[in-house]
């Protein structure tokens, strides 16, 4: 299950969007289980102080996995900070994900960022940042670049319901409309922006309809339905590739857990609401379906969960044993090359560190 390749699929016939391929449904289920297990584990690791922060995605697995399957390897992904399942489907090795959560010396981002702020160049999974919405205009820019290079590829921007209020949502959708950029705007409306419920984020009836302000289609889908999400992304991708421009997709889901490990959702929402949402748990829904289709039974399912738990535990421990980044990396990647000033600061740090002053001259 780890070290998988980007799970991109070829389109059977351009224009005709098929359902989520039956043959890969079980595989998709495995990714969803793995994501759920990572969530559980990461929340507990954070409580133990073994990682510094975590933003769980529980409730959004079908949306993320469905969307990721709708893409091709050359497509570029612009994540928010909750898209761990997308990274899995793209084939990012679990170990790399954990290296980032730990911020160790093996982390591809060299320990510069908080947990969940991934960047995986090989999988066209662009660097994550915390400021809400900023990836949206960037995704449009990359799509405009793809247009100019005549690449048969698209970009997808992931963002939340809260991000629809951001400056970049407005600028990004407007530019995409004007330039017919091949971008898929994928909004995971999980009903909450920390403590702000969706209906106080904006007064429009749906988020999807905001697309019309920019002259292109918006579509709302049940984000717990892997097929529906897959079809929507696939359709949007084909429109984009055909030069018909962007699409806004609103995947309606529910955030089961806290906003992040810093959040206590009982301050602003009733447990009963969460319980109601959990009744539509996307992982469970898919499991039931696979069982009905005889692709899965309880015993096999138990094995899937156990395997996932074992893999997660082992891989995390390996990441945890990896030493932290070297102090000199502090000064690297500010620019391609150290400026004289950074060179001096680096030298001063090392000098100070050697003198036992904890750095600095």
């Amino acid at each position: 299950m780890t070290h998988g390749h980007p799970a991109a699929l070829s389109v059977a016939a351009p224009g005709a969007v098929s359902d989520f391929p039956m043959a890969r449904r079980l595989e998709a289920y495995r990714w969803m289980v793995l994501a759920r297990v990572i969530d559980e584990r990461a929340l507990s690791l954070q409580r133990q102080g073994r990682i510094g922060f975590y933003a769980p995605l529980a409730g959004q697995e079908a949306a993320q996995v469905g969307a990721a399957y709708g893409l091709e390897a050359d497509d570029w992904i612009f994540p928010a900070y909750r898209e761990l399942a997308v990274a899995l489907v793209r084939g990012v090795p679990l170990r790399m994900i954990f290296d980032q959560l730990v911020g160790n010396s093996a982390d591809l981002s060299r320990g510069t960022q908080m947990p969940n702020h991934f960047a995986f160049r090989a999988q066209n999974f662009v660097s994550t940042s915390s400021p809400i919405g900023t990836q949206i205009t960037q995704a449009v820019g990359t799509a405009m670049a793809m247009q100019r290079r005549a690449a048969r590829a698209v970009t997808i921007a992931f963002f939340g319901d809260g991000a629809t209020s951001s400056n970049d949502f407005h600028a990004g959708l407007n530019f995409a409309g004007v330039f017919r950029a091949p971008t898929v705007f994928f909004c995971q409306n999980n009903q909450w922006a920390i403590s702000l419920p969706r209906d106080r984020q904006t007064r429009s009836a749906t988020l999807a309809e905001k697309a019309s302000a920019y002259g292109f289609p918006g579509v709302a889908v049940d984000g717990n339905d892997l097929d529906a999400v897959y079809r929507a992304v696939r359709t949007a991708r084909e429109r984009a590739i055909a030069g018909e421009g962007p699409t806004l997709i609103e995947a309606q889901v529910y955030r089961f857990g806290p906003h992040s490990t810093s959040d206590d959702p009982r301050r602003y929402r009733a447990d009963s609401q969460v319980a109601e949402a959990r009744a539509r748990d996307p992982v469970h829904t898919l499991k039931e379906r696979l069982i009905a289709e005889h692709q899965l039974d309880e015993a096999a399912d138990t094995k899937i969960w156990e395997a996932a738990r074992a893999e997660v535990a082992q891989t995390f421990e390996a990441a945890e044993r990896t030493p932290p980044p070297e102090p000199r990396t502090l000064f690297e990647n500010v620019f391609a090359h150290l400026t004289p000033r950074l060179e001096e600061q680096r030298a001063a740090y090392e000098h100070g560190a050697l003198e036992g002053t904890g750095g600095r001259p």
Partner: protein
Amino acid sequence: MSELTIVQAINRALHEAMQHDPNVLVLGEDVGVNGGVFRATEGLFKEFGADRVIDTPLSETGIVGTAIGMALYGLKPVAEIQFLDFIYPAFDQIVSELAKMRYRSGGQYPCPVVIRTPYGGGIRGGLYHSQSTEAYFAHTAGLKVAIPSTPADAKGLLLTAIHDEDPVIFLEPKRIYRSVSGEVPDGDHRVPFGKARPVRAGDDVTLVAYGAMIPPTVEAAEMLEKEGIGAEVLDLRTLVPLDEEAVVRSVEKTGRAVLVHEAARCCGFGGELAAILAEKAFYSLKAPIARVTGYDTPFPYALEHAYLPNAETIAHAARGAVRGG
């Protein structure tokens, strides 16, 4: 007097200001029902209701833009930006509008908005939950910039900010929100802007700092004392207006200055202080002016301990200054 943490003192100040003046209101992300992600606005929603404790959509542009409109009409908005790192969507409103409104209208439209926001590192927040960019605001004519370092000052400076006739950027040292506590006067306690707090007296070197850099600076002074070096510590409290006189006077006495901030060095506030001293205390200076600051890199995650000034690095610079002349 009550024993409070810094964040409690801020909460207390907001509470009292809102009780005292119906024009005062609070707005921002998660400030209402949730009480703020750091709980600075805890309890306000319950007491003052949704009309005065406004949970806004996720838009700093909207928060500051509407706060400006409220202030123009005579209300006293206290806007919270969840982290200083997220203030930039509002930067246009702050530097182009808020800072210039009084000036550009010839005094017709004062615009006394208070923007509160937690700043600084040391909480394992990485690039986007750690930055100290007070220099952007200090460089923007028309803004006042306050940064408390004690619970009493947190309350006293915030009440002064709320009563001020001009816009104030109020930066809260989140690293010591809860770790520093102390006695806070009850009632309408105000700490004037532009008066540095003399934290510690000394004759050999002046250490100038503010906000979350005060505890390590004081610790450095204590270390130096044991080595026979008398370090005077000044807490600036407000960068604009600046208590230039206190800084210059101290360095005239000690002849040596170490300027401390966690912000990146280049064009940080330490540069401003050094320039003032190199002009106005020049003939008293016995040694090169030293800066102990963040590096000219983004704020790191795993290596934040290496990035941030600490007591040892501050003391090291002070020793250098004393050796230097």
